[in-house]
């Protein structure tokens, strides 16, 4: 076998993924297939590697899921297929599977000594291409290339049908399932159908997108749009066709949407499942998912609007957010705690004033989602509130309750915001405020949670005297903050700072606090960011916030190879300063969040950059980062670190906000001008 040539052709085919079904695939095709093996058992790993090499594959092995994910992210097209063990200490194999599916869309094969039907079924539902029982026979490995071919084939066909809408109609929903669930089915069914369809529809194909690339990259923005559409339709009633119409993205086919929807659903399901295990937070989180979704959708929509208009008035944002939240709330089964929190942030009041006490509701709602990853230290409520705060900040006028200490969840944020205002970190904080507010309650004692509270707190401190913070009615940007609340332990003192610093705060919070997998939240936050008022403010804070963001992002981004990284650099540095345990964050939630974020960030970051201003971009980055951070379980980065320099917090917040903004690509203006809420659309 001419391995080298085969390998060459292999690489070509794998990279292009354009080889059509009918293409001449060298007989030696499988050789050179780039396989990534993940297994915590070194013995197994070694054996598998040996076997795979014997099959003439190119093998990379990892014994930790996190490592695997980062490798995949670094080199998006560097692998053709992934083999993963089911039982791993650091991350569940299925979770990894989902992340890979969402982010990279590579075929994944699960392995285990466990041959129970339940487990195998789980593999199927999570989207695994195949399931091997250990001991794995070399013959089984010889065949794994079929999954790669099949997937490519289907993708190719998917794209080929640019007029997919029509085609999609033609093809029943089944195709979606086929798409997603098993490559085998997909291959068979779709292949044949597609072939038939293709012939018939050659003409029809022309009309729609010219998208011919085999794979759709679900950028952050795109995903946001998607989530927005889904939320608008209602999670249950979201059909690919309608989503596609709502999204109105040229070049996107119904099949793309369908398969993405499937993944998204699994993701949500998983989140709800996971969250249940956790304490309130989890429930909140799950609850938030829908909320999140709605929020995101709202944010997405809002942001879009904002983007269009350039400035989404706080009210509208608030409204949207409220609507979103409301929806979310309704949908989510958030536990009472959440509900309470949500109430706090009831979006009904789009213009939450800073001084308004219960702003938290709003944020809560949103935050709920965001707060997913909030560390346990933070009470769920707080988290929720924080989140809401973040979110609501946008909407609400930052309920910056004067609560000094973390008295009530809502208040804390608000209060912090108030305090923060002093810091004047900048309106970024709106979001932050929210978060802080949320945090505040939680933060009762400088919780190490970086969650917004920290951010806010920091911001607050730095801000000192940011009176404007309270202004945040328009700050809806807090979504990012929402995430943070968790981590803030310290000061969130309700400085109104939140507004301006929200972004920063959020970042901070997210960073520190993401103890929980904010994955879902992040998504939400991304989505929620409709009110990116903070972003505007961020501009001011930009330099700082970026750092914060960068900081945050830095750790986060390690995994993020996404475009965000580029953008985030700024933020990362910013964040880095903060000393966020972002690193931590990166790790954990990343998977979840990353997935979502990846989608967001990549798209958004890029797009946002050009948008409004760097801030926005940064925000996006931040958002993304924050999102990521959140997902990663932001461990409480020593709050001290985070807030030592207020500056950092602000930046972080801004970064976060930005990120969020970016996620939501919201051009929401952040009224947080640095410390003046000028931008806050009131």
């Amino acid at each position, binding site marked *: 076998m001419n391995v080298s040539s085969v390998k060459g052709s292999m690489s070509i085919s794998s990279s292009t993924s354009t080889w059509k079904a009918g293409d001449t695939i060298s007989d030696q095709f499988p050789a050179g297939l780039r396989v990534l093996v993940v297994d915590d*058992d*070194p*013995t*197994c790993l*070694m*054996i*598998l590697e*040996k*076997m795979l*090499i*014997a099959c003439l594959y190119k093998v990379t092995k990892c014994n930790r899921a996190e490592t695997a994910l980062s490798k995949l992210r670094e080199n998006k097209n560097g692998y053709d297929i992934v083999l993963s*063990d089911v*039982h791993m200490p650091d991350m569940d194999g299925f979770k990894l599977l989902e992340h890979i599916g969402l982010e990279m869309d590579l075929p994944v094969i699960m392995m*285990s*000594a*466990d041959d129970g039907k339940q487990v195998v079924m789980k593999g199927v539902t999570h989207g695994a291409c195949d399931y091997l029982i*250990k*001991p*794995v*026979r*070399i013959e089984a490995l010889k065949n794994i290339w079929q999954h790669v071919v099949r997937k490519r084939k289907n993708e190719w066909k998917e794209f080929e049908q640019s007029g997919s809408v029509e085609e999609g109609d033609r093809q029943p929903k089944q195709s979606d399932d086929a798409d997603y669930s098993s490559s085998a089915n997909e291959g068979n069914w779709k292949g044949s159908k597609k072939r038939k369809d293709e012939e018939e529809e050659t003409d029809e194909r022309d009309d729609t997108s010219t998208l011919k690339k085999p794979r759709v990259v679900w950028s952050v923005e795109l995903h946001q749009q998607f989530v927005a559409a889904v939320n608008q339709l209602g999670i249950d009633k979201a059909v690919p066709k309608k989503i596609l119409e709502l999204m109105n993205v040229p070049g996107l086919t119904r099949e793309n949407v369908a398969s993405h929807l499937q993944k998204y659903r699994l993701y949500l399901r998983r989140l709800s499942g996971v969250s249940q295990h956790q304490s309130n937070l989890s429930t909140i989180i799950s609850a938030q998912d829908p909320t999140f979704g709605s929020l995101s959708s709202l944010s997405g929509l809002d942001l879009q609007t904002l983007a269009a208009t350039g400035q989404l008035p706080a009210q509208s944002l608030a409204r949207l957010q409220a609507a979103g939240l409301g929806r979310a709330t309704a949908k989510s089964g958030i536990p009472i705690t959440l509900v309470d929190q949500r109430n706090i942030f009831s979006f009904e009041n789009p213009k939450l004033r800073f001084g308004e006490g219960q702003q938290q509701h709003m944020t809560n709602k949103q935050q709920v989602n965001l707060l997913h990853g909030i560390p346990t230290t933070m009470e769920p409520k707080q988290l929720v509130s924080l989140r809401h705060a973040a979110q609501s900040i946008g909407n609400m006028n930052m309920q910056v309750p004067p609560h000094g200490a973390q008295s009530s969840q809502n208040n804390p944020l608000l209060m912090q915001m108030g305090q923060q205002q002093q810091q004047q970190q900048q309106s970024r904080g709106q979001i932050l405020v929210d978060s802080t507010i949320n945090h505040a309650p939680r933060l009762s004692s400088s919780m190490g949670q970086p969650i917004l509270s920290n951010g806010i707190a920091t911001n607050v401190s730095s801000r000192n005297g940011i009176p404007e913070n309270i202004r945040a009615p328009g700050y809806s940007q807090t979504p990012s903050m929402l995430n943070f609340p968790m981590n803030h332990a310290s000061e969130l003192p309700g400085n109104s700072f939140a507004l301006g610093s929200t972004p920063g705060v959020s970042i901070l919070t997210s960073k520190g606090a993401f103890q929980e997998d904010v994955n879902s939240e992040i998504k939400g936050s991304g989505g929620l960011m409709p009110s990116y008022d903070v972003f505007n403010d961020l501009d001011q804070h930009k330099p700082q916030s970026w750092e914060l963001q960068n900081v945050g992002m830095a750790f986060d981004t390690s995994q993020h190879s996404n475009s965000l990284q580029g953008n985030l650099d700024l933020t990362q540095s910013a964040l880095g300063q903060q000393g966020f345990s972002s690193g931590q964050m990166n790790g954990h939630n990343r998977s979840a969040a990353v997935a979502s974020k990846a989608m967001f960030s990549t798209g958004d970051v890029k797009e946002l950059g050009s948008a409004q201003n760097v801030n926005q971009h940064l925000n996006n980055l931040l958002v993304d980062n924050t999102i990521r951070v959140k997902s990663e379980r932001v461990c409480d980065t020593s709050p001290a670190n985070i807030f030592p320099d207020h500056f950092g917090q602000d930046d972080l917040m801004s970064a976060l906000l930005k990120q969020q903004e970016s996620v939501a690509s919201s051009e929401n203006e952040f009224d947080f001008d640095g410390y003046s809420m000028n931008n806050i659309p009131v």
Partner: protein
Amino acid sequence: MESKHVNQQIAAMRQSFFDELEDQNNPNFVEEVFTMYFRDSTTLLETVEQAMKTISITLAKMDKILHQLKGSSASVGANKVLNEINKTRQVLEKGNLEGTKAGIWEMRKEYDSLKAKLEPYFQLKQANSVPQEK
């Protein structure tokens, strides 16, 4: 020649031991694998046994460890050990602590016997290869 005889012995042992699941081209590979296997599984087995002694261990944890052992053993082809592990796991699932203990004991037995069989093989191999290198 004695060495030849020994080689044959080694080959025979090898055949009897190793189900050619893996690529056996590199004999050292086998050694490496088994070294690893024994290293890890010894630890695991000890943990399990320790766990049995302490009451605080939870069944879930035990199961996890056993699962790990199972995976490793399966991968190296230690079938007898694997069987015992499976039996033990089943008993464990039922919650039968005593039965589990007995099962673990059986596992230990098989494991030790496997080790006993393999060790001479490796030693022989090592010893044999050394003079050959000269």
